């Protein structure tokens, strides 16, 4: 594809290979480690579920019972429990919730554990494959198979039943994707809450039951409107892999899943996050779940004009990590955002250049484009105008996923009518300005070409600088978002373990095989 922006293919190639060099040593670390949450996700995929009387989830109970054996992989102890008690996961879960201690059971021969493991992996795999084919079929049959961009809106009432009403209304109005925002601070919980929930601040708890409730509701609306409505949640925070696991089991379609967001914006330990994101992305890849990365956050925290290159650099790093998890480009919803100060002259041109640049560097990725938020104010009328310009860029540069801006962004989580107005705006722009850019060219050496070339150049030097320091040190030294995170600081480091030589994880083994992941570096 010819670059409309006159970007050098060689520079892009160089940036990609530096990103790979940056990721390599981290990947080496990842391969040699596991975490509490990777183990809990594995247990969930094998069938662990339920909570005890104190609300502690069974996967957490198991991991704390086995605290000194995690380096061997906890799956074998769970499977041993099934064999010893001759029961299925449902029954074992109830027993564990009732107080059964897995460490008190003698271990059966590894051969049987292996066999039973294969059987449970098969159950998991069948379930996810069924979801995959169901989704594929629905999307192919839908009246407007793959509108581009897909219109994405958020619901965030705190009450899953209220969310359902808002989500169904939005879907009927034309939203293609519904994200249920998580409640404040869920990312810092080291367990996943259980059951349907009706209390949340600024969002709704991610629980498997809530996933089910919303999935069912959106399938209903999908049937009614002849479309497939996609459901999104957040595989982030201390339980990142477990949320990915629940998403795979309940047929979510997208997951926010960034390789560094938790480190920078939630102060989660970097080792923990890197290991967790890898396993999460393996699950997402297998379940055909599109990830959304969080580059927009760099721009709400730092200046969007000055720091545009940090977005491109982070996209390349996210892409590289995703490749290591066996993820195809079509599942990489790399993020970026329309966040420049609206008062700068020609800001629109710079935004357009940036969005087109992302399109050209990642031609196969769906790209998730985020709306203005930081400079949204109580002037909802101006905000609506800003959202229109944003929508135009999204359509003109063929972004795959359009998170719709809300005119009330600076005020409250959206009212039902706010979403309606956002969808109406987007539809108007999509239809009215749809093919404008394919009918126009960028002026050679014009403002936009120059801007894109400059940002790409800055991206290359920035990546080089990170590579010289190494990613761990670069994060420590404030190179991303002006935030410094010490290597051994943040939450969750005590839940990271070096794998023993005999570490066994049947889910990981299976996914490595399915996704063609090489474990060469161990």
């Amino acid at each position, binding site marked *: 594809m010819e670059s409309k922006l006159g970007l050098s293919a060689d520079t892009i190639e160089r940036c990609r290979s530096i990103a790979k060099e940056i990721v390599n040593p981290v990947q080496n670390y990842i391969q040699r480690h596991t975490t509490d949450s990777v183990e809990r996700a594995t247990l969930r995929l094998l069938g662990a579920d339920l909570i005890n009387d104190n609300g502690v989830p069974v996967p957490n109970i198991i991991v704390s019972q086995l605290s000194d054996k995690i380096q061997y992989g906890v799956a074998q102890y769970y499977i041993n429990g099934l064999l010893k008690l001759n029961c299925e996961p449902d029954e074992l879960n109830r027993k564990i919730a009732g107080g059964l201690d897995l460490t008190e059971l003698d271990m059966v021969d590894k051969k049987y554990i292996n066999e039973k493991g294969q059987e449970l992996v098969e159950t998991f795999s069948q379930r996810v494959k069924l979801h995959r084919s169901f989704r594929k079929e629905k999307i192919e049959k839908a009246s407007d198979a793959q509108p581009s961009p897909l219109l994405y809106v958020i619901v965030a009432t705190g009450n899953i039943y209220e969310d359902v*009403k808002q989500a169904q*209304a939005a879907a009927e109005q034309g939203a293609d994707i519904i994200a249920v925002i998580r409640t*404040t601070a869920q990312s810092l919980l080291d367990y996943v809450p259980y059951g349907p929930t009706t209390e949340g*601040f*600024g969002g709704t708890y991610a629980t498997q039951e809530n996933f089910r409730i919303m999935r069912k509701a959106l399938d209903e609306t999908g049937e009614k409107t002849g479309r497939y409505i996609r459901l999104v949640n957040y595989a982030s925070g201390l339980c990142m892999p477990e949320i990915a696991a629940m998403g795979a089991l309940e047929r979510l379609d997208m997951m926010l899943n960034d390789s560094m967001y938790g480190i920078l914006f939630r*102060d989660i330990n970097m080792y923990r996050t890197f290991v967790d994101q890898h396993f999460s992305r393996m699950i997402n890849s297998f379940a055909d779940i599109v990830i959304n990365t969080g580059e927009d956050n760099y721009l709400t925290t730092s200046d969007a004009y000055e720091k545009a290159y940090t977005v491109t650099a982070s996209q390349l790093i996210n892409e590289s990590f995703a490749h290591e998890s066996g993820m195809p480009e079509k599942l990489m919803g790399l993020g970026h955002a329309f966040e420049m100060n609206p008062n700068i002259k020609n800001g629109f041109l710079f935004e357009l250049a940036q969005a087109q640049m992302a399109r050209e560097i990642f031609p196969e990725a769906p790209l998730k484009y985020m709306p203005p938020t930081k400079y949204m104010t109580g002037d909802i009328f101006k905000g609506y105008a800003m959202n229109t310009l944003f929508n135009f860029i999204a359509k003109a540069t063929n972004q795959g996923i359009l998170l719709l801006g809300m005119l009330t962004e600076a005020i409250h989580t959206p009212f*039902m*009518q706010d979403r*309606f107005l956002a969808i109406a705006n987007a539809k108007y722009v999509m239809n009215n300005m749809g093919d404008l850019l394919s009918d126009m060219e960028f002026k050679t050496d014009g403002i936009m070409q120059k801007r894109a070339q400059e940002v790409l150049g800055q991206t290359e030097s920035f990546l080089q600088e990170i590579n010289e320091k190494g990613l761990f040190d670069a994060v420590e030294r404030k190179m991303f978002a002006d935030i410094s995170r010490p290597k051994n600081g943040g939450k969750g480091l005590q839940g990271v373990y070096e794998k023993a030589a005999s570490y066994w994880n049947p889910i990981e083994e299976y996914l490595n095989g399915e996704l063609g992941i090489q474990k060469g570096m161990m």
Partner: protein
Amino acid sequence: MMIKAYGDTLNDGAVQLSFTLPVASGPKADEAARIYTGKLGFEECEVVHSNPLSDDFTFFVVYGKSATSLDYSKVVVEEVETSMDFYEVNQFIKEKLKRKIVVVGACTGSDAHTVGIDAIMNMKGYDQHYGLERYPEIEAYNLGAQVKNEDLIEYAKKVKADVILISQIVTQKEVHIHNMTNFIELMEAEELRDNIVVCAGGPRVSNKLAMEIGFDAGFGRGSYPEHVASYVVEKLFEKQRK
């Protein structure tokens, strides 16, 4: 002076509204919206637009005129007066307080928004207004976000803070009010409330609200570092003289 909303003629009382009713769209819904607007106290109500949001909800744009008027001369606001700029604040500290002052700030509770407190405290400041870290006469410590009230108070004791600043951005379900109240209770339990000047800020935090909860002052949207700086130095001076 009596005033009313202004459309195109003085005292026409013209107001533009938009809202949603939980009913299916149609002529009956439109009529309901018109009557409803009337009950809100408007006259000559006109539903100029309506649109279904789903089977059970409809969105309306309505114009109406209100006869209600207001005596402008009776309106009182309690606003924090801003008097000094960066240089004047430093000058004031040097001349009147005669020692550097210590300010500790954080975005507290589960709230993860750092940009507001950074705008007030960081060296770089915000919108070309230097943050408190840049003030030579202020020793400023910005603890960032998601800081527990207990930890903030502990830290303030450690560095012998004269001033504590807290930022609250998330307000859904009044979470900021709970958190701010808890902060004041802890300060009182530690018998620190009288010795330390405490201010709160955030886009939904007004001076009135902050004072009701027990803070010395509150700073809403559009605040700049020098606003809070000049308030606290004057407050400290007042305390010093007592």
